C-alpha cells in the first residue's frame, strides 16, 4: 500500500468538520493528543454494544469475551513493542505509568533492588515533560535520594560531556524521554543506557513522543521500562502502557491495590498476583484497551516506517520554510538529524498566545505555552513557544497553511 495522507485522512471523521466560520481544520497539535480513526472508535463501540462485562471475574459468556478482547489487546501491544505479553501493563496514561514506577519504587522495602535511600541517585534530563520530572522529585524527597540531570545545550541537544559524573555508581534510576515533546530532539540512548547499565541502574524510557511515530523494539533498545499514552497514538483517551522486563516486574512492588491484583487477602494483609495483574487493580479500562488494540493495528497496517518517513518529509519541508521566515526562531534542532516532527519556535515580538490565537482563526491548531516542560523553556530562554507537531494525517498543504498563517499574523499584529 503506498502511503497517501489524503486517503488516511478519510479514516478520521474529525477532518470532516470545519473550524471558525467554515475554515478547513489544519491539525498541528498531535504532540498534545492525536485524532482518532473510525476503526478505533468502532472498536470501543463494539466492546460496549456486544461484549461489555467485567474481565477476569465472571464465569459467563460476556465475561469470557471481554477477557479475550482485553487480553488480546495486551498481546497486540506486546507484539508492537517487541515485548512478552506478561510484561505489558495497562494504566490510564503515561503519567500514571511514570507515577506507578516511582511510587512502586518508593514502596520497595530494604533489600529489594528498587529500594532507594539517601546516597542513591536518580537521573533525568532538563528536557523532561513534567510527568517525567515531578514524580522523581517527589520520590527523591520521600527517600532522600538525590535528583540530578543532564543539561540541554542551545541547539536543544543533551550535553553528555559529563556523563560519568552524572550517572555514577550511586545512580539507581535513569529516566528520560526518547523524543522531546518541545524540541523534537531524539536523544542518543545508546551511550546513556550503556553507562546506566554499567553502574547497575535501570533505564526508563518515556516513549510518549516516539512509540506513535516510529518502530520501537524494547529488547533491541535494551531498556528496562517504557511508558506511553494511547491517546497520542491514534488510540482512545484513558489508556496508557507500562512495560517492564519480566524479572524487574517480579521484583517491583505493586502500586495501586485492590481487586484482581491479589493472590490472597485477609483483614490484616494481602499477597500479590504475578505481573501484569499485580499492577492492574480494579475493573480495568477494557473498552479503551480494545480501542488501543485497534489503534496499533491501524498504525501497523499503514506501517510505522512509512509513517516515520512521511513525518520526516514534512518536518524537513517545514524546517526549510522556517529557515526563510524571519523573525522565526526554531527552539530545538534546526536540522533533521535525530529529530522528529515537533517544531517549536518563537516569532519576534508576537507572543505565542497571540500567534496561536491568530492561527486558530485560520483553522490552524497549534499549541502555545511551555508544553509541560517549564524548566526546559527557562533553560532555552523563552517563556513560551508556539509548537507545530506532525502526524500521519498531515500534508504539505497543512505545512503551507501554517507558513501562510504565520505571515498573515505578522501583518495582522504588524
Amino acid at each position, binding site marked *: 500500500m503506498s502511503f497517501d495522507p489524503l486517503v488516511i485522512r478519510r479514516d478520521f471523521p474529525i477532518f470532516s468538520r470545519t473550524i*471558525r*466560520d467554515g475554515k478547513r481544520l489544519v491539525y498541528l497539535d498531535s504532540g498534545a493528543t492525536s485524532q482518532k480513526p473510525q476503526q478505533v472508535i468502532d472498536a470501543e463501540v463494539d466492546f460496549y454494544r456486544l461484549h461489555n462485562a467485567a474481565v477476569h471475574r465472571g464465569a459467563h459468556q460476556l465475561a469470557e469475551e471481554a477477557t479475550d478482547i482485553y487480553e488480546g489487546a495486551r498481546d497486540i501491544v506486546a507484539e508492537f513493542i517487541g515485548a512478552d505479553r506478561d510484561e505489558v501493563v495497562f494504566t490510564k496514561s503515561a503519567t500514571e505509568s511514570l507515577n506507578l514506577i516511582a511510587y512502586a519504587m518508593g514502596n520497595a522495602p530494604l533489600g529489594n533492588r528498587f529500594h532507594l535511600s539517601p546516597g542513591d541517585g536518580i537521573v533525568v534530563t532538563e528536557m523532561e515533560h513534567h510527568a517525567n520530572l515531578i514524580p522523581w522529585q517527589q520520590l527523591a524527597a520521600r527517600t532522600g535520594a538525590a535528583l540530578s540531570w543532564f543539561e540541554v545545550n542551545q541547539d536543544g541537544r543533551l550535553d553528555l560531556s559529563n556523563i560519568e559524573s552524572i550517572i555514577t555508581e550511586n545512580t539507581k534510576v535513569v529516566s528520560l524521554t526518547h523524543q522531546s515533546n518541545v524540541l523534537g530532539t531524539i536523544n542518543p540512548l545508546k551511550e546513556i543506557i550503556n553507562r546506566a547499565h554499567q553502574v547497575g541502574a535501570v533505564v526508563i524510557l518515556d516513549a510518549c513522543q516516539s512509540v506513535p511515530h516510529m518502530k520501537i523494539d524494547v529488547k533491541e533498545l535494551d531498556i528496562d521500562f517504557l511508558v506511553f499514552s494511547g491517546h497520542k497514538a491514534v488510540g482512545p483517551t484513558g489508556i496508557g502502557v507500562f512495560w517492564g522486563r519480566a524479572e524487574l516486574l517480579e521484583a517491583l512492588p505493586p502500586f495501586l491495590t485492590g481487586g484482581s491484583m491479589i493472590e490472597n487477602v485477609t483483614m490484616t494483609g494481602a499477597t500479590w498476583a504475578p505481573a501484569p495483574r499485580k499492577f492492574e487493580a480494579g475493573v480495568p479500562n477494557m473498552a479503551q484497551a480494545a480501542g488501543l488494540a485497534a489503534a496499533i493495528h491501524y498504525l501497523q497496517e499503514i506501517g510505522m516506517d512509512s509513517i516515520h518517513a512521511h513525518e520526516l518529509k514534512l518536518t524537513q519541508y517545514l524546517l526549510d520554510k522556517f529557515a526563510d521566515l524571519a523573525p522565526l526562531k526554531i527552539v530545538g534542532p534546526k536540522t533533521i538529524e535525530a529529530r522528529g516532527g515537533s517544531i517549536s519556535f518563537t516569532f519576534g515580538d508576537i*507572543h*505565542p*498566545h*497571540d500567534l496561536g*490565537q*491568530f492561527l486558530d*482563526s485560520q483553522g490552524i491548531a497549534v499549541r*502555545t*505555552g*511551555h508544553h509541560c516542560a*517549564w524548566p526546559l*523553556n527557562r533553560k532555552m530562554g523563552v*517563556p*513560551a513557544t508556539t509548537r507545530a507537531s506532525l502526524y500521519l494525517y498531515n500534508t504539505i498543504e497543512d505545512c503551507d497553511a501554517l507558513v501562510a498563517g504565520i505571515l498573515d499574523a505578522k501583518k*495582522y*499584529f504588524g
Partner: protein
Amino acid sequence: MMQLDNLYQEVILDHYKNPQNKKLESDNDAQVHHINPSCGDEVTLGVKLEGEKILSVNWDGVGCSISQSSTSIMSDLLIGKSLEEAAVISESFLQLMQSKGSQDGDETVLEDAVALAGVSKYPARIKCALLGWMAFKDASVQALSKKTN
C-alpha cells in the same frame, strides 16, 4: 477575521506596544508575583496606598498582548481611585470576562477595559486577561493589611 478583530481591538494592541506604568518602583507598600501556569505568563505588580487611596500601580511582566494590555489598562484605570472604587471596577471586569460574549461592559465603569470584552468568548484567554487584576487584588490586600497593622 471579524471575530478576531473583536478580540484584538486597537486599544489592546496600543497598550501592548506602549504599556503604561510598566516600571517597578522600589518603595511599594506591597509587591506580588503572579504566574499563569498554563502558558507561563508572569507579572510582578506593586501597589502604593495613601489611606484608602491608590497612589500607584506599577508592574513588570512577560506575556501575551491580552495579559500585558489588560494589566496596563488596569493600572491606568485604578491609579487615583479608592480601594472601594477599585473593587467595584474589578468585580465589573470579572463579570465581563465571565459573560461568554453576552456583555459589552459598562464603559462608564471600565473605560478602556471594555476593549477586552471580546476575550470572554475565548475561555483559554480569560486567565490571561485576569492575571494583572488578580495580582492587584492580592497586592492591595497585602498593602492594606501592612498599613493597618
